[in-house]
């Protein structure tokens, strides 16, 4: 289901160009709007669809196995951290789903440098950052020597 861009909705902002992991959303030099230059490298990952402020991008199932007439539309709401899916079948049936995408505000992750600076000697221990606390067990497991065969 590679992407296509709706001529009347796209304003050429370039968000899709910026996000596409396959680098295949390019701005058409004539129309100054975006399009998929290489559908055979499109993974239908929907990264661009979700990122487009104009909801100008849609997908049409891969031509080698998907009959026409379906739609899989999505709205990703970063305010309320939910994603809404609307699936329209070829025969007209519709399914809708909503799922959470995140439990904390965007930007809220505490950078590693804001944790207390670890002791230099800890660099030689097998413990990783926040361990053992973050393991939620008392200690990092080690392999009983007996098990080394």
């Amino acid at each position, binding site marked *: *289901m*590679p992407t296509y861009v709706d001529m009347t909705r796209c304003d050429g902002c370039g968000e899709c160009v910026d*996000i596409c*992991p*396959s*680098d295949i959303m390019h701005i058409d030099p004539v129309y100054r709007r975006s399009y998929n230059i290489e*559908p*055979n*490298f*499109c*993974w*239908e*990952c*929907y990264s661009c669809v979700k*990122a487009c402020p104009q909801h100008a991008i849609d*997908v049409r*199932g*891969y*031509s*080698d*196995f*998907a009959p026409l007439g379906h739609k*899989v539309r999505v709205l*990703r709401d970063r305010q309320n951290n939910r994603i809404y*899916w609307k*699936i329209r*079948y*070829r*025969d007209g*049936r519709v399914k809708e*789903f909503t*799922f*959470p995408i*995140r*439990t*904390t*505000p*965007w*930007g809220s*992750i505490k*950078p*590693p*440098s804001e944790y207390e*600076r670890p002791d230099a000697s*800890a*660099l*030689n221990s*097998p413990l*990783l*950052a926040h361990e053992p606390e*973050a*393991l*939620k*067990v008392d200690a990092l*497991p*080690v*392999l009983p020597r007996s*098990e*080394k*065969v």
Partner: protein
Amino acid sequence: MARRTRFVDSDILIIGGGFGGCGAAYESRYWGRDLKIVLVEKANIERSGAVAHGLSAINCYMGMRWNENQPEDFVRYARGDLMGLVREDLIFDIARHVDSTVHKFEEWGLPIMKNPQTGRYLREGKWQIMIHGESYKPIIAEAARKAASEVYNRIMVTHLLTDQTDPNRIAGAVGFSVRSGDFYVFRAKAVIVAAGGASHIYRPRAIGEGTGRTWYAPWSSASAYGLLIPTGAKMIQMENRIVLARFKDGYGPVGAWFLLLKSQATNAYGESYEAKYLDQLREMVGEKYIQSQPFPTCLRNHAMIEEMKAGRGPIYMHTQHVLDTKEKEEIGWEDFLDMTIGQAVVWASQNIDPKERPSELITSEPYVMGSHATCSGAWASGPEDVAPSDYHWGYNRMTTVQGLFGAGDTIGGSAHKFSSGSFTEGRLAGKAAVKYVLDRKGDEPRLDEIRIKKLEQTIFKPLENYRVGRNEIVAGTVAPGYLLPLHGLQRLEKLMDEYVGGYSTFYVTNEPLLNRGLELLTMLKEDLEHLGAEDLHQLQRAWELHHRVLTAEAVIRHTLFRQETRWPGYYYRADYPKLNDAEWHVFVASQYDANTGEWHMSKLPVHHIVEQK
């Protein structure tokens, strides 16, 4: 051309901002507060790598806090699944740390599903937990961006650089900006390669436009291997490519269906087929491996492949028997909407309501990677406190090249890492790299200016080839002077499929086929000189192809070397149709000499450090 050269200095250079790379960024900053940590990524780390569209499960989580599993159990699982051959030290190491990674993910905001009865994470299977993972990658990327000194998006890294005088010591990397076309020279004291596994080594089942729909992402361009191999880093298990049982065409994964929803797969006539092949498999691999619990992934494939070969397909996943509640229907749909939306499109376009009708399963084309039920990748030093002495040479996850580390798909012998394990391995590599850099303070690697100039010419040559060659012809895609990247890719895929055990031979190969494949691959490799790139995007494709071709060569050479069929269901050496523990209970290792083009093949011992229960 107004191409500029950009020099970027760092203490630690991380190549690839996927799960391994993000873990490496986070952890190296934690330990290396004053170091310059640079992450370079060919796409945009917000949505890059195998998890770009999200995931619906974390497939590697012990649950030690609830005493669900212990790391030793996980080692036994991965070992059994890989038919005995894994780096148990590396796997143990990931297993013992992975829970802290997952707990951190949850703290950062990843919604992990809970079992309403127990309040614990909702288990998909013994090792897997369910998540609402649409934003899995953006969340992880946020953590990485906050950790790295600088993130360079849209730089395709093409080559690693080694020290001017010590070819076995890392010194940086080069690449180009896919946006500006600038030449980038990254100078670094340590490099962590986390550039992911490989799709499109083998001909996909899809055709034309549909070839975007591979299981692993089309942008998984084998760079982890393509970057490492030319340095002479030792690689292992490159023959151990993976074939996946997947929903046909959409490539929706099966895990949640088999394990959580308890759906059954049958042949076209409603028969369960796995048990039928036990006797045959016992003959092929021996009783010991048949007894592995769960039944190894490759052997599950074998049963499906044989059943299809016998003309009893389609194989059906009977989703219609298990989606009997709204909750289960939602889980089924989310499984794919989170990570393989294309599968939802198959259902919508073909009028298949999984509540009503079964869906076809199929075995995919092979993939080369190191983090799923497969373990191709670099030979790496293990954790000091766990690794047997011949598995340890100084720094955890350091390859055989000094200062060159890896994580995720990059590191071999360590299957079943998945997203959480790859991130964890990035952390392990990140911490070790900090130590390496601090240990070597004052002893900095030096770059070879002449080599860098040469590389610049090599890297941009496809643009020049195209410019010159394009003038010879009127229009169109056929020209005598150059090969387009897509042409080269298709040539690669066809030969790998036909000679090296792709889907069209039902994964069968033999020595004469492999040798012929190698002969054709060698000509393709020569022809890469003539790649033509119309623009910077195609220049990226050109270098992705280089990385894939070298990786494919490793696959062929390893497959030739291992004279047995270790993993029926992944591939078959028809000339050595059985598993042979007497001679092949070893890792196959290779080292490439980029100057001569020669490969040195060897066997490396498999040490069992966890007892069989």
